[in-house]
């Protein structure tokens, strides 16, 4: 029978490895789901999924994407997990004229980080995730619910996310000052920085009570331990990226309790898979049963990427890149992370948005730390689990 190959690129190793941790499991699940093949253009095709590791390294991500396109000759590439992987993969697809669906990057760093032009957009690359506007709304709403001096200290590194979050126009600074928060941003630092005393000193000096940012997990640990060493105790710590994962929280020991972060997917999200018909809760429980590990947020999105891919391939006239691309572009699908459809105005020609809420880590029953949703202003469909506590 004919074969259709789907490429998948994510960080399996390196500082961003937690983003790719669940991929192997999801892919196994997909192999079962696709074991009978899918019909494309009237012909049955065996599905083969090729997984490549970007090692959290943008250069490597581009290289493996090129390999997938030129050597493996995949029909479609899926990619997820921070701009460091998704952007170069998307660029390689755009360059080589192969369709690509990406996720787990706020859409601004994905679109503007790749120098996308809102008027023309991209021809081959499509993206599904939330945007900075959502994360700003969720974070600030959460902070306004507790008593603080509204002094915020920011940790924005010199990478795709950090540059977007900290951007004067697109990022945090403008809306924050609009809402009466003052922002201490000491500047972009290198990922893997071993010493945060400069930032800590600046935060202490400005009397910062809220710390936010988007840092990689090891840097969060370095920052938090050094803050403790140097006697800096903010009331709220809401970090993107670093605090998404239970493993990272556990590694922090006692420092982990009460930290908050953005939540893009959880078992309580009210959506179901178009392939397996599992609800979000079923999906996470299935993961926990097989792997004996606590659920993580990327599970939903990895799963959803395959949902969109499967749907598009089924609707595609042939395996010609142009046909597959057209099928992707015309997707209208309810997935386990919400509804996916492209074709809005400006950047939204290539971007489909999914909902976002705020969560907080606390001592759990089943696991050492569990995530509770504490603010849902920007996505009221997602049920609340509690309210934000101070540290």
């Amino acid at each position, binding site marked *: 029978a004919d074969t259709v190959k789907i490429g998948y690129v994510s960080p399996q190793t390196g500082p961003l490895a937690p983003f790719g941790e669940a991929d192997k499991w999801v892919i196994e699940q997909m192999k079962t789901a696709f074991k009978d093949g899918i019909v494309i253009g009237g012909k049955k095709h065996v599905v083969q999924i090729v997984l490549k590791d970007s090692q959290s390294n943008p250069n490597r991500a581009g290289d493996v994407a090129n390999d997938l396109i030129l050597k493996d000759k995949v029909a479609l590439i899926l990619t997820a997990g921070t701009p460091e992987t998704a952007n170069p993969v998307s660029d390689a697809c755009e360059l080589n004229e192969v369709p690509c669906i990406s996720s787990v990057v706020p859409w601004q760093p994905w679109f503007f980080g790749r120098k996308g032009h809102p008027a023309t957009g991209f021809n081959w690359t499509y993206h599904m995730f939330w945007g900075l506007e959502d994360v700003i709304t969720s974070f600030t709403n959460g902070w306004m619910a507790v008593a603080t001096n509204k002094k915020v200290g920011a940790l924005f590194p*010199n990478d795709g996310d*950090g540059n977007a979050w900290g951007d004067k126009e697109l990022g945090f600074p403008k809306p924050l000052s609009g809402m009466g928060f003052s922002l201490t941003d000491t500047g972009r630092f290198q990922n893997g920085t071993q010493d945060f005393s400069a930032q800590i000193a600046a935060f202490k000096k400005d009397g910062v009570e809220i710390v936010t940012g988007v840092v990689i997990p090891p840097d969060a640990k370095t920052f938090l331990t050094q803050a403790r060493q140097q006697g800096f105790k903010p009331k709220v710590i809401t970090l993107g990226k670093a605090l998404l994962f239970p493993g990272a929280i556990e590694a922090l020991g006692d420092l982990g309790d009460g930290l908050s972060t953005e939540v893009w997917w959880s078992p309580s999200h009210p959506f179901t898979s178009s392939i397996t018909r599992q609800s979000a809760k079923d999906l996470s429980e299935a993961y926990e049963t097989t792997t004996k590990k606590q659920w993580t947020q990327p599970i939903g999105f990895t799963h959803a990427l395959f949902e969109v891919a499967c749907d598009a391939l089924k609707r595609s006239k042939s395996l010609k890149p142009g046909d597959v691309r057209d099928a992707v572009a015309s997707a209208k699908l309810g997935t386990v992370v919400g509804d996916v459809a492209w074709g809005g105005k400006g950047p939204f020609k290539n971007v489909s948005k999914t909902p976002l809420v705020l969560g907080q880590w606390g001592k759990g029953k089943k696991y050492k730390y569990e995530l509770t949703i504490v603010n849902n202003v920007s996505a009221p469909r997602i049920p609340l689990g509690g309210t934000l506590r101070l540290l």
Partner: protein
Amino acid sequence: MNPSYKVVRSIQGGQALLAVGLALVGLAVSLPWWGESSWMREFVEIACYFIFAMMWNLMAGYGGMVSIGQQAFFGLGGYAMLVLGNFLGINPFVAVLLGALAAGLIAIPVSRIAFRLQGGYFAIGTWVIAEVFRLTIANIPAVGGGSGTSLTALRGIEKATRESVTYWMALACVVASIGLVYFFLRSKQGLALLAIRDNEVAARSQGVAVGRMKLAVYAVAAFGAGLAGGLYFVGNLRISPDAAFSVNWTAFAIFMVVIGGIGRIEGPLVGALVFWALNKFFSDYGTWYLIGLGLLAIVMTIYFKQGLWGYAQQRWGWTLFPTARRLVLNTTLATGLTPVQPAGPSIDGMPSATVNSGDPFQDGPNPSSRYAQ
């Protein structure tokens, strides 16, 4: 007064070799019409490695300057190309050349710092310099800072055109870099460079401007590295400081040169072929592949210093790019210096001089051994 003589600078079968070479180039030029686009991409990539290695060889193998910081110029070439293309709207392919030029020019002030150090210190010092460039670029938001940016200048150009132009350009650069190094080494300046490598003190006392020569070689090597960089990123569309200024570029160059044989033009050529083959068959082994490369470089350096081509040259006297000057006297006396061999036709039509006169000269053994350059 002078015995009549001839200076032979070619090898036997040179013309045949030249013909084979030209045929290969011709074949390569036509590749876009019959080959697959993945082949072109592969060639461009290996061409970048090769040009980079060739320049590293010129600098370390001939000039005695062992640098681990050549990625500075690779990255600068790439970024200069990007800035010229993205912001100034210059055709990216033209921008590649201009970027290389920029890298070469920047090398001149940089050399003032780097030349303060010698030997191993020079090596690591140049690495620090490369890091300074990396961090500087990473802190400039206009070029995307640490996350890098995409080359938008190429977006308007059709895929097939882009691919073949990039490919031809890489091919031209490969041929040009071989030609450049070859003719440079054959020239009077090449003689000076060899003299410096052998004995700096004596070279100075024979009137060779050692400092200027080293600077020239450093700048030319930077130009070549910049060229490789520009070319690489034109083929890749996306550039980031970590990729552009990665020490791996130099690591692979060192590997190729050491495997092929340092201080000979054939070295990087053979090294690049070996590297390409290893890469093709083993790169899927990922880290194990890299571990293997590292071990191979170590073993070669300790047990097999002259490299593959050096071995062939010693063993069988092979040379593809003759740069030596062999003196042949125009007499057929049995006791003569060198039997007037039917010296192979000159590979490139370099003049073989003949001066009249006819002194007999002293007896002597027959030194016909070729030797390493």
